[in-house]
């Protein structure tokens, strides 16, 4: 785990992003720490509303201001803090160094331009190529992402393509500038599984070929297991566990991670009787629990969990866990407080 700065393409430190609404402040991202190694893939998992998307939008500085604002923290990309960059500098970084793919390709593609024009345009903004050369490169990109008869497809509009094809076009656009980091927010959630398999395979192959670092946001633990090297599990705006993929799936430590893994019905395994569940539901973002955010649902919670927020601590095997169980104080604590059966 002793990585030097150079090995990390991105390092997020104590990122805090809030939304200020009529009802009050929503701490969407509340002290997130994570990092991505060069050429590697980080997965972010967690339930709806846990702050996955806002983390990525904060990194890219694409928050809807002024309602949403980064309050604190650093986003170190290649040694420089993105939080301190101007809007103009960020636009350049988003065009040249970091790209993003969203869940619904239809809403992020321009319906009035052909696919070829859109790719060529993003090439021309960032590379000084003439129209003809940019078009040729656009067709190359379509070919690269596995679109059959790319010359013909380049002349078509997004609505003329299937969902899987559109996602390929999105990938082509986002890779056109040779980004060092690609952030993909639920890139395959809207797609059918057989098409998802195609797209995941494509992303993996392109990553190998181009050496791109990758951050994948997903609620699908299968996708994480297939794609990622490292995993950050988020709950209520915080990272509760951060470890390599093998550890997360074979030796998870945070009670939320364990609960999450157990409640997924698996297609390749029989479960006798009922699924194991996490009782209750995610707390209201305006009334977060004071101590550990997971305490109201946690089968192990003790007194300290209700009052004091645990830190993200490194365990003996390099796994990082935000839970009192892994502290020295734990043994001194009394009985568990939640009487879940």
């Amino acid at each position, binding site marked *: 785990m002793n990585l030097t700065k150079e090995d990390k393409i991105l390092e997020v430190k104590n990122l805090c992003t809030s939304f200020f609404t009529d009802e009050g402040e929503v701490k969407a991202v509340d002290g997130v720490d994570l990092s991505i190694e060069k050429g590697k893939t980080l997965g972010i998992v967690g*339930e*709806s509303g846990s702050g996955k998307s806002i983390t990525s939008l904060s990194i890219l500085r694409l928050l809807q201001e002024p309602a949403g604002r980064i309050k604190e923290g650093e986003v170190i990309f290649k040694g420089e803090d993105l939080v301190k960059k101007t809007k103009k500098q960020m636009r350049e970084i988003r065009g040249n160094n970091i790209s993003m793919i969203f869940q619904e390709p239809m809403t992020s593609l321009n319906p009035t331009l052909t696919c070829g024009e859109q790719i060529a345009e993003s090439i021309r903004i960032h590379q000084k190529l003439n129209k003809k050369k940019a078009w040729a490169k656009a067709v190359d990109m379509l070919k690269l992402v596995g679109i*059959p008869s790319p010359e013909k497809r380049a002349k078509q509009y997004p609505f003329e393509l*299937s969902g*899987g*094809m559109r996602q390929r076009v999105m990938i082509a656009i986002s890779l056109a500038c040779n980004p060092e980091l690609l952030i993909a927010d639920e890139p395959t959630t809207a797609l*059918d*599984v*057989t*098409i*998802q*398999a*195609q797209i*995941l*395979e494509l992303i993996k192959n392109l990553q190998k070929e181009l050496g791109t670092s990758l951050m994948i946001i997903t*609620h*699908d*633990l*299968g*996708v*994480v*297991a*297939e*794609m990622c090297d490292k995993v950050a599990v988020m709950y209520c705006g915080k990272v509760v566990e951060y470890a390599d*993929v*093998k550890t997360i*799936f*074979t030796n998870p430590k945070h009670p939320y991670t364990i*609960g*999450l*893994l157990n*409640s*997924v*019905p*698996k*297609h*390749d*395994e*029989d*479960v006798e009787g*009922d*699924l*194991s*569940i*996490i*009782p209750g*539901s*995610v707390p209201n973002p305006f009334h977060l629990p004071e101590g550990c955010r997971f305490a109201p649902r946690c089968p192990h919670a003790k007194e300290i969990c209700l009052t004091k927020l645990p830190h993200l601590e490194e365990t003996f095997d390099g796994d990082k866990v935000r839970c009192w169980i892994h502290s020295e104080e734990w043994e001194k604590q009394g009985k568990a407080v939640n009487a879940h059966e």
Partner: protein
Amino acid sequence: MSNQALLEVKELKQYFPIKGGVFGRTVNHVKAVDDISFTVNEGETVSIVGESGCGKSTTGRAILRLDNPYSGNVLFEGEDLISLSKAQMRKKRKDLQIIFQDPYASLNPRQTVSQILEEAMEIQSVVPRKDRRKKIQELLETVGIGAHQMDRYPHEFSGGQRQRIGIARALSVNPKLIVCDEAVSALDVSIQAQVLNLLKDLQRQFKLTYLFISHDLGVVRHISDRIIVMYLGKIVEIADKKALFDDPKHPYTQALLSAIPSTNIAEKKERIILKGDVPSPIDPPVGCRFHTRCPYAFERCAVEEPKLMNVGNGGFQQVACHLMDEQAK
């Protein structure tokens, strides 16, 4: 579970017209469901799986006559639902309920939970008025919502709780069959597990029969007794759960199962990656509809449509694929 058929779907077709030209004439049809037959026994959970546009939801809607089918028969306890008048069908819905993916869209935002349940009982007049309040309380407790919350509005509940309200509404008329159309798909996994357990529990308690429509094969494996796999409006395989997951026979079923990313990182399996996209249901391929993407397709597949045939040794398994013939030879 019994071997008594509760629902029999026979040669069901659902074609939606495509209008065109100046006169708005029907120029073609989307063949959303194209001649499918299956049986659901009392107390059983039968799932329909397949990718978007394969006809899963259309089948569910046609059975309940939310859209009247183009042709075919739907026998419920031996009675043909298709021949019923509208008024008769409305009465029949007491026995056949449906739960949708988005509970929010199907709950009236201006009604409290108790009004929603009361209205359902009123329409079907199953519970005498004086007993309704008590029944509502029971129903809410059954689905795990405190009865003290009965005067709240849908927006005051979380997604999982709203789905529980949708379930309570379906239960309020004492149905025999519930069609669950992607009923847990929009829920987070931890909440999804709660609702799945609830559905199983209710089935035991009230001897319910489920037709469970889902694209999630993990969920389907957990809840089903038998599974129907559809592709482009056709059934390609029907089998007992064990046979389907342990020994899938249709090349599409095999590809579908192998495409699902697995959380089992110790055992990486070789993946079958299908080429291309699902063809259009307006103009589906002739012969076997899967032949354009099938890794094993041979000449016969492009000309002759395979029929569903029994292949199970012991258990129940039917497959529509010419390879079955070839292997039998």
